[in-house]
């Protein structure tokens, strides 16, 4: 082949490339979008998981909003937590708004043992679909369906399906409280609550609003709306609506009186040391033996 062909082709293509580059250079100058370099800097400090927990479309969306607002009032990255927000506050030169760390809690404790299955579900493995078909294997129409839609949406590897209980388990370390599971659950079983002092928290692990008798028929650990917890609470933190108790985390002082009072054990305490009285009884038993 004649070498000239190659040279000609290179010259022509090179020429086109050069001319295009010049045109593009001027176009880029003329239509340049002025963007605050701070946005890039803030975005770099965000986790980059694009979980949507802040309410903005992705991390860059939040960075944009933060820089535009010029303060951190009402803006928070639940995934990054207070460390990230302090760093961003330093970049912007504003005072950091410290928000308490949060975690998702499951308001259902209907394990296979406590809420035995009355029927068997064998279809598309999606809670969204199962919820349209029937009340659930236990018969409780408010409880966990166990198909794992929440596990599928979690971007932080914080939810696992327990094969024995068929309930999702929230990981203390991994959960950032982004709220993806809250949106995914067709039964609205997740709630984002404060992690609490020393990670200790108390909540009602039930969402059943049926009357006590019927609720108990389907599940041993259902809230029956007996209001015993309301009476025992010294801080007015507990309310009962529609046969279901709710603990206001801002008023709760973690005294644990309601936990022992609850006849169906539907109030859960997390990360508390075992109670002293219980220990004493055990010791007595041991001594007797």
């Amino acid at each position, binding site marked *: 082949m004649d070498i000239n062909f190659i040279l000609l082709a290179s010259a022509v293509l090179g020429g086109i490339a050069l001319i295009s580059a010049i045109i593009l250079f001027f176009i880029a100058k003329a239509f340049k979008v002025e963007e605050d370099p701070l946005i890039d800097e803030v975005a770099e400090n965000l986790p980059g998981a694009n979980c949507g927990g802040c309410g903005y479309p992705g991390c860059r969306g939040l960075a944009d909003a933060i820089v535009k607002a010029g303060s951190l009032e009402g803006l928070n990255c639940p995934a990054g937590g207070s460390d990230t927000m302090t760093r961003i506050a330093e970049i912007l030169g504003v005072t950091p708004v410290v928000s308490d760390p949060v975690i998702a809690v499951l308001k259902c404790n209907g394990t296979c043992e406590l809420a035995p299955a009355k029927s068997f579900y064998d279809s*598309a493995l999606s809670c*969204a679909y199962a919820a349209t078909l029937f*009340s659930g294997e236990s018969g409780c129409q408010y409880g966990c369906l166990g198909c794992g839609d929440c596990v599928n949406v979690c971007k932080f590897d914080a939810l696992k399906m327990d094969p024995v209980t068929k309930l999702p388990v929230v990981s203390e370390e991994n959960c950032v409280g982004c709220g993806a599971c809250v949106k995914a659950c067709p039964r609205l079983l997740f709630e984002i609550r404060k992690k609490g002092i020393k990670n200790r928290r108390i909540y009602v692990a039930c969402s059943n609003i*049926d009357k006590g008798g019927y609720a108990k028929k389907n599940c041993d650990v259902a809230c029956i709306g007996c209001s015993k917890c309301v009476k025992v609470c010294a801080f007015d933190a507990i309310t009962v609506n529609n046969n279901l108790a709710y603990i206001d985390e801002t008023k709760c002082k973690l005294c644990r009186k309601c936990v022992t009072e609850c006849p169906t054990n539907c109030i859960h305490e997390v990360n508390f040391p075992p109670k002293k009285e219980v220990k004493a009884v055990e010791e007595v038993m041991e001594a007797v033996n």
Partner: protein
Amino acid sequence: MKSFKIGGIHPEENKFSKEITVEVFPLPKQATIYLNQNLGAPSTPVVNKGDVVKVGQLIAKAEGFIGANIHSPYAGTIQSIDLVPDAFGFKKNAIVINVENDEWAEHIDTSKDLKKEITLSKAEIIERIKECGIVGLGGACFPTHVKYMIPENKKVEFLIINAAECEPYITIDHRMMLERAEECLVGVNALLIASGAPKALIGIENNKPDAIAHLTKVAAQYPKIEIVPLKTKYPQGAEKQLIKAVVNREVPSGKLPIEIGVIVNNFTTCHAVYEAVQKNKPLIETFLTVSGKKLTNRKNYQVRIGTSIQEILDHVGIPEDTGKVISGGPMMGKAIANLNSFAVKGMSSLLLMDQKESKRGEIENCIRCGKCVKACPMGLEPFILAPLSDKKDYESCEKFGILDCCECGSCSFSCPSYRPLLDMIRLGKSKTSSMIKARKG
């Protein structure tokens, strides 16, 4: 032989109970009547706890445009009005009646004589259908009178009666055609007057030659009624497919059959219409087939609504290895999660599936064989729609025509990888329609 053109399947017919005459099921001691027995809004009770009611007395009034009255199927005392779990375990408002005797309300003609002469006018017939709370007994329970509220600019050219009974196992329409043909055809005549249509066409699948022969003989006295034998193919009894097969017209996407001058009613509904128009008897009964491969004591029952499903099943004796009970046909019916629930209007069958039949196959990957596309009677592409709904891309679902899906289940039936195509599409369909509703504001 007439049929719809695209798609369709032919599942095993299993019409075991076609020789068995319809029996009247004995009255229960206690009955529960749900307040949402129809498509649309649930009805409002007009009786109170402790009231004494007679058979056929109004106990709940229709709510909203799409609604139907409910009448007491029993004579007795109202024990309570409470939340009762339905067949799928969801709690629904219901009236519980302690059955005492079988005393009918005075205005109802309880004689068994056939009354052929229709004396009511068009408006009176529609009013009577509305008063008597008649809903379509094909399964969807759409209030019948709503179909006859024809817009001013529309004219009904054909009244099509759906007697295809394309679902396997179910034989109740077949039995009705053989046993109550005279009554049903009077009902068809009443509907002809109500619709103003010049002609009624009764579409029957050709796997029921005895029914075709019998109906043709009975229909000879009515020049306006014609029997149309159809090819045995599922879903021949789906509204749009039936229209295509019988009169070769296509219902435009997203429109009702009235758009092309057609009204479709189920065959057993005509029996209810006959009783309402000629005897003033409200819809308090449902006709249902109890069948299954392992079941030896198969039945066709005439059951008062509110009878316990468990009681019906105890009556026939549940075979030992029953894995699933389906309300409705095996293709479109729903599995019952709670047997302690009660019969409703339009419950056309109870099928007992054995353990092996109840289990679904292991879900494998889609191998792009195209069997679902070939089977889809609406000309959709289920293998595209299912993953789109699964991935929540409802915009694309709309573009690919998910709202045209008639949920017949032909795609899931024909899938060699046992993919739950219809399950995914059904969810996508409901999400897409709510998305469209939200967009319209």
